[in-house]
């Protein structure tokens, strides 16, 4: 009996505490609601724009910027010598006025624009450029590789910088657009512990300062940065150029696509950068909301090792051609979602010199079967397809692998999917070039078609497929030729040669460029997908 009383009392207490909690939550929720709605009203009425973006970084000091989202901030607060004003074109001068390559392509002379001032009011000179690029180089952080081909720099006068390169590098202008090479206000940064000396990796202490505010010549000044939470950008009153009509950006670091979808539809945020195919479907038809589905330059590919010891029949060039013919590219586009593209060849659509998309009618099962018969596998064969646990912009590589399996079963190739986590051997095997047959993805380090040259025989990724320089010396030679082509037209010509050579042959099949999905409030103008900056906020205006 006693126990029963106890139980009754306990359950009564439980019920009461539950309702109490519920009440509390209700109060909180309504308080939160009003708070949000005032903020929402503020964002949709005034010249403040709220952006939600992904996480994955811990600093916005340009010298250390390497991840996907910090360039959004750096591009707003700083400027580089060159800039991508359009996502699909070549870099154009920004702080630079003009540039010139020497005869041997080993020296690049850049003239700076005159009359440019930093947010502090200091004028921008060649000394600032030297300081910024040397600092990035000497900090030896993740992005320092970008300056690897810069041997040394000199500044003959206040408006001129001369770059001496270690080798011919037709991508140098693109590299100079990279956020890590943004031009800092050297006087201010030095005052706050910055240095560009050789030992900057240990002596530079400016990161804390550059995480609290910015020191650039950009359209905005960073007034607050709370890691993994929020960044606030306010208009730079001393901006030298023509500014947009957005006075303030609140950038929420909040990657969840469902939350972004809901806050966008309630008007609490204006731009949602991490939407998915599925959450986009929820927004379809919503009033005052614009949607963008476009392709990124992150590309998923099938790799077929050229060495028979690893890949068996898949190393046969005829079999490789057959597999290329058998894959159903439009099916991959459906699986990856709206906006997905299949590039024509090894260079992603959107890059300078790209030949665009591969025609979806390239798929031809009859031709694939004929090629297999020619190779001596008329009855098909069994093969293991190793796949890791990674995802390409949210698309599981195992999903791509399942599609490959299904497609190849149509021509008699029986694929057995073997999953191996990246950390448990896949990563090492991939880098060592011992994987026979796999599906992987490739994200570009910087926005230039030259990054794709690594897929050539003898280059980094080529070797991972056992494709050595001796196997195709002619194609391998195009690497150097592209690096030397500093003239854009000449460069496009070589890049097209590369793409044609790898259109039907070779160990790589580019299957899909991952899509990006952006949802935005239609009161904004100029929202667009940007590969180098995630979102170029300097191009956005309020209608």
């Amino acid at each position, binding site marked *: 009996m006693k126990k029963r009383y106890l139980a009754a009392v306990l359950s009564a207490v439980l019920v009461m505490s539950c309702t109490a909690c519920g009440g509390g939550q209700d109060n909180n929720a309504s308080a939160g609601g009003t708070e949000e709605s005032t903020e929402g009203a503020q964002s949709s009425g005034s010249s403040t724009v709220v952006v939600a973006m992904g996480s994955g970084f811990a600093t916005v000091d340009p010298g250390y910027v390497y991840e996907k989202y910090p360039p959004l901030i750096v591009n707003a607060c700083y400027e580089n010598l060159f800039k991508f004003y359009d996502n699909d074109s070549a870099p154009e001068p920004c702080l630079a006025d003009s540039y010139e390559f020497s005869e041997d392509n080993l020296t690049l002379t850049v003239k700076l624009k005159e009359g440019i001032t930093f947010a502090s009011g200091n004028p921008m000179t060649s000394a600032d450029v030297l300081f910024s690029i040397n600092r990035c180089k000497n900090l030896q952080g993740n992005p320092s590789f970008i300056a690897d081909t810069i041997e040394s720099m000199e500044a003959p006068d206040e408006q001129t910088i001369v770059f001496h390169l270690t080798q011919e590098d037709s991508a140098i202008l693109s590299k100079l657009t990279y956020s890590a090479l943004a031009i800092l206000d050297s006087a201010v940064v030095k005052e706050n512990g910055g240095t560009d000396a050789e030992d900057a990796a240990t002596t530079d202490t400016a990161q804390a300062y550059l995480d609290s505010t910015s020191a650039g010549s950009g359209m905005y000044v960073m007034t607050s940065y709370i890691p993994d939470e929020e960044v606030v950008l306010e208009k730079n009153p001393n901006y030298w150029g023509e500014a947009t009509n957005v006075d303030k950006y609140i950038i929420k670091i909040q990657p969840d696509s*469902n939350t972004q979808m809901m806050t966008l539809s309630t008007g609490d945020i204006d731009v949602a950068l991490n939407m*998915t195919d599925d959450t986009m479907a929820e927004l379809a038809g919503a009033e005052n909301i614009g949607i963008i589905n476009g392709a990124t330059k992150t590309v998923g590919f099938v790799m077929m090792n050229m060495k028979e010891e690893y890949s068996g029949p898949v190393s046969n060039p005829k079999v490789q051609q057959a597999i290329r013919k058998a894959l159903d590219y439009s099916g991959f586009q459906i*699986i990856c979602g709206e906006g997905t593209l299949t590039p024509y060849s090894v260079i992603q659509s959107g890059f300078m010199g790209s030949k665009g998309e591969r025609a979806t009618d390239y798929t031809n099962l009859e031709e694939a079967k004929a090629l297999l018969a020619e190779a001596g596998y008329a009855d098909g064969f069994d093969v293991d397809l190793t796949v890791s646990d990674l995802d390409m912009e949210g698309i599981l590589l195992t*999903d791509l692998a*399942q599609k490959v399996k299904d497609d190849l079963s149509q021509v008699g190739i029986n694929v057995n999917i*073997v*999953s*191996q986590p990246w950390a*448990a051997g896949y990563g090492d095997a991939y880098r060592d070039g011992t994987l026979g047959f796999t599906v992987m993805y490739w994200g570009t380090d910087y926005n230039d078609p030259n990054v794709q040259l690594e897929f050539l025989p003898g280059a980094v990724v080529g070797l991972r497929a056992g494709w050595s320089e001796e196997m195709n010396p002619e194609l391998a030679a195009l690497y150097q030729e592209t690096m030397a082509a500093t003239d854009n037209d000449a460069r496009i010509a070589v890049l097209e040669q590369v793409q044609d050579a790898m259109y039907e042959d070779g160990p790589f099949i580019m299957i899909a460029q991952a899509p990006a999905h952006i949802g935005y409030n239609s009161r904004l103008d100029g929202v667009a997908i940007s590969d180098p900056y995630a979102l170029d906020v300097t191009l956005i205006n309020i209608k």
Partner: protein
Amino acid sequence: MLRSVKKMFRSNYLFTLGVIICLLWILAAILAPLLAPCDPVAQDLTLRLKPPSATHLFGTDNFGRDIFSRVIYGGRYSLLAGCLTVVIAGCIGTFYGAVAGYVGGLADNVMMRISEMILAFPSLILAMIINAVLGSNLFNTMFALVIVAWPTYARLMRSVVLSVKENEYVTASEALGASRFRILLKEIIPNSISSVLIMATTDIGNQILMFSTLSFLGLGSAPPTPEWGMMVSDGVDYFNKFWVAGFPGLAIFTMAVGANFIGDGLRDLLDPKLRKQF
């Protein structure tokens, strides 16, 4: 015993329900080729993510595969992994724990410390490590699950044996000169096994979930194998398409609940204090 089982079927309908659910799933798994209307791995992208309909009872997934067929086939992997893991881990753990508890002393100490070493690792991480090192397939995953699961049985068994061995009938057997092995097999284990049996039946659901978790992490069966856990994780990306994760989730749920009902029923049956009620 047989009479009390019959009686229980009549009086304890939760137990009966549990048995029916489990039998249905086992039958479905065995007769999958006859019951499933479609090939569980055949893709058709034109039928992608279609809601449940007459042709596709449970709808289709992101590859246009028939979820109903996949759920039926999926029972084969999930049930096999769940039941076999529990049986093997249960046998190992029971014997190990009984020996440790009955022998006592230093042997007990050493044996229990070994089992605690395994328990000290987070079980999922340990299973992942074993699986990653051995390579992932159905057999290795079950092996990893057994390694992780047996110490719990051993500890339970030992604690029960510690009290059982103090009983007069054990002392009587000893006085009659029975060998220790005989006492262990004939007196100790039969009188301690009930709690392990109960735990084992309820554990089947856990093991199915654990197996599913490992599959989700790419360490179980490889896609496109229709495995319940993997199907649930596939569906997580389609939160507004409830059927993709919902139906395989329901399968795991009913299976786990069924196993739990049987476990509860068995406890009633095997617990001498409750047996009188029937």
